[in-house]
């Protein structure tokens, strides 16, 4: 097996835990290592070229498409995937309650992008939200309920601050 014969392995820090990656082609994307070698399938692949945002993860706090990141190049980074949000976050709850989820294939990526946006900008206007989520394709919802969900999450955080 030419592509997997490299004896070297590398280590990734995903959601705070170390993962040894031994049997991966060194040119593999972070998305394929997460899904096929570490077994975290929450990040989705729908385009494999950075157009759809379904594979969005946080790399040292920055939102990236994991399909465009060489896994072996991020051994020194902290990687957070959808599984690492802990579940039932305000953003996830808002997506469920507002009808922002239909087939749900884009949802993990949109949740990551929204989480990242609200961490950077707690009070985005609608143009900020459109800008921040323009890299995440959704084919089911037409985005209306997604905008609604983001607003609900923003309002919730404002209320909690008061």
């Amino acid at each position, binding site marked *: 097996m030419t592509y997997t014969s490299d004896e070297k392995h590398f280590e990734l820090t995903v959601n705070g835990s170390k993962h040894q990656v031994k049997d991966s*082609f060194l040119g593999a994307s972070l998305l394929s290592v997460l899904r096929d070698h570490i077994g975290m*399938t929450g990040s989705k692949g729908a385009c494999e070229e950075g157009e*759809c945002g379904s594979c969005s993860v946080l790399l040292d706090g920055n939102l990236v498409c994991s399909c465009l990141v060489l896994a072996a190049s991020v051994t020194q980074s902290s990687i957070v995937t959808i599984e690492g949000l802990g579940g039932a976050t305000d953003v996830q709850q808002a997506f469920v309650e507002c009808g922002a989820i*239909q087939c749900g294939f884009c949802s993990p990526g949109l949740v990551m992008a929204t989480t990242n946006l609200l961490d950077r900008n707690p009070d985005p206007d609608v*143009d900020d939200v459109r800008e921040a989520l323009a890299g995440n394709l959704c084919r089911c919802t037409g*985005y209306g309920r997604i905008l609604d969900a983001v607003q609900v999450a923003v309002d919730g955080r404002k209320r909690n601050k008061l």
Partner: protein
Amino acid sequence: MSDLEIRESVVRGGIGQSPLRPDGVSKAEGSYLFSSDLSADNMLIGKTLRSPHQHARILSIDTSKALAMQGVHTVITADDVPGKPTYGLISSDQPVFADEVVRYIGEPIAAVVADDEDICARAIAAIDVVYETLPALTDARFAADPESMEIHPDGNVIREQNVVCGDLSVVGDVIVEDRYTIGMQDQAFLGLEAALAIPDADGAGVECHVATQWLHEDLAQIAACLDLPETAIRMVLGGVGGAFGGREDISLQVHVCLLALATGRPVKMHYSRSESFLGHVHRHPAEIWMRHHATKDGRIVKVEAEFIFDGGAYASTSSAVLVNAVTHTQGPYKCDNAYVRGVAVRTNNLPCGAMRGFGVVQACFAHERQMDLLAQKCNLDPLEIRRRNAMATGDRLITGQTVESVAPVREIIAGLAAIPEPSETLHSNGHPYRLPGGAGNTTRSSDVVRGVGYGLAIKNLMYSEAFDDYSTARCRLDDGVITLKFATAEVGQGFITIAAQIARSTLGLEDVRLDPIDTGVGSAGSTSASRQTWMSGGAVEAACLKVRQLIFEHVAATTGCDAFALVIEGDTLVNTTNGQRWPMLQIVSGLVIDEEVEFRHRPTVPLDENGQGDCHTAFAFVGHRAVVDVDVELGLVRVVEIATVQDVGRALNPLSVTGQIEGGIAQGLGLALMEEIIQRDGRIMNPSFTDYLIPTIADMPPVVAQLIEIPDPQAPMGAKGVGEPPTISSTPAIISAIQNAMNRSGGADTHLTRVPIRPSDIAKAVNSNLRD
């Protein structure tokens, strides 16, 4: 039993409410398993070899080099298909693997199964196929010509269907006509095709987990190709990442089952995005000529049309798509006389079949552009011309069928007129997102013109032409807990949410559980044709009603009351003769009842050669108003707002209805402005999301939606399907708005006739120097 409890008797999560999706949390948290997420111990990976030629004879296939590779388990070709060599939804004309001849670029020729993806890729490259290329038939207009070569043993013509009605000699005071072009649209569901097949230990059968729209139809087609009894195959719905028609046909199902049986190990196949463009059918590209005759005051007296649908290499659902197109020529307008010709043909292009709107999208684009022409010619407002011709319940269609469905076309028009235009004025905001061209900052607000346009549509619901269309559901009551079983494909639309709502409202019990969706119960039919709310919703309701009747009989037997006097109000059982009330949960304590029902809609008939007959089951209606800003010189468009009024019968789940409306409009906007598969000599030039553009959140405007809720007497619970109408007339509304902006800018003398519209279509229309 206690009597007379005075309290609010409502059932939480019933019909008319918007309870949360049962799969919502797992989807938001990434733990929901889509078919592409499935795996099994000892699993192998399968991959498909596809034709690089549009039309060629296969002289030889040498798989020996691939077979000799370490990690390759087997390679299969047409010779390894034990049963029927072909499959197909309506006619079985598509080979499992090409045998002797390939008819389109991307046609499967062989499949390999190996330890991993990389070995698969190298094995595919090592298969040596010798072809003799043949001339390709690429133009649908020539395919029907008897002089043209036949590219398939069944001939080039898949179906011809005319609709001839009334007095053909009628001539109008006003005549408008043009030719219209609709490009090939892709469903572009995000969840790529994927399946996991697990062979039985004895090799006598297989279990297939797949993202599909219709488990039982897949089952029947797979069984025939595998030469196995249907009982030897179990189909389980793998998580479906959207469908929109593109999963109605077989893609990798037969291949993955063959590979699993050949190796005796679980096999997974999944397509890449570029392979997905080759691996499923698309929306038919169409050429349409249409001519309307009307009186001076704009009343339509005759419609004439000709439809040419390019079905690509294999039939898929082309014949039904064509019937939908020709029978919807008149749109939601009265028309007594018609002469319509339609043909769907085979070519050496990509196979086409079902996509949201199914033939009506194409017809609607033409009739709505025609209505705008007619309005212009009669000097009438575009809504006024539509109001004068609006169809109503009881009208006869050009097929001779009487519209029995609620047909609130005038109400839709009045509703659209009453929705205020967007408050955002043309020059109110300098943010580049608010300008055509967006963040590219390519235009200035002083160069932008606003336009407003309209589109209306009629859409048939459910299957047509005598198809035995049914759905099965089972309702089990056990000590107050309801469990529903059905094979209805949940593709994201939310049937699983409303199924539970229906059960709660029918039985007055809140604890509803859903069994896995698989072929362990009878067919539910396809999740398509806006049919599952009516059909599977009807089946769930009918099964629950049977259970309810048995509860009533049980109560009557134990209390001596009359079963016919009992009703359920909210979560309470009421004896209407004396007002006695009991909590439902108390009444059903310890009861076990299990009922299964097959639900059918009313029968329909095939069209005759003149296109006459009651071929459709029911109809829904919709209207859209688009407001756009256009830089007419650069041909850039920004949609500012879509307003819509939709006839939904009754909104069983208002939030889900909103989701269908907004999502459907996004796909209509995509067809209007950006979505087209570009083929050159049968090869897709843009098989990626970099080059095949679908609307992003920056492209989608706010949607103002108003529902018309007049419960349809023929529909279970009064609810019509809502999935397709939003996609249908949103497209022509946007083009109409662009035309309006061009007309307002002065100088435009060209009628827009093509979708998707390209910047050059607009720029050329306003600047004759740019024309070819």
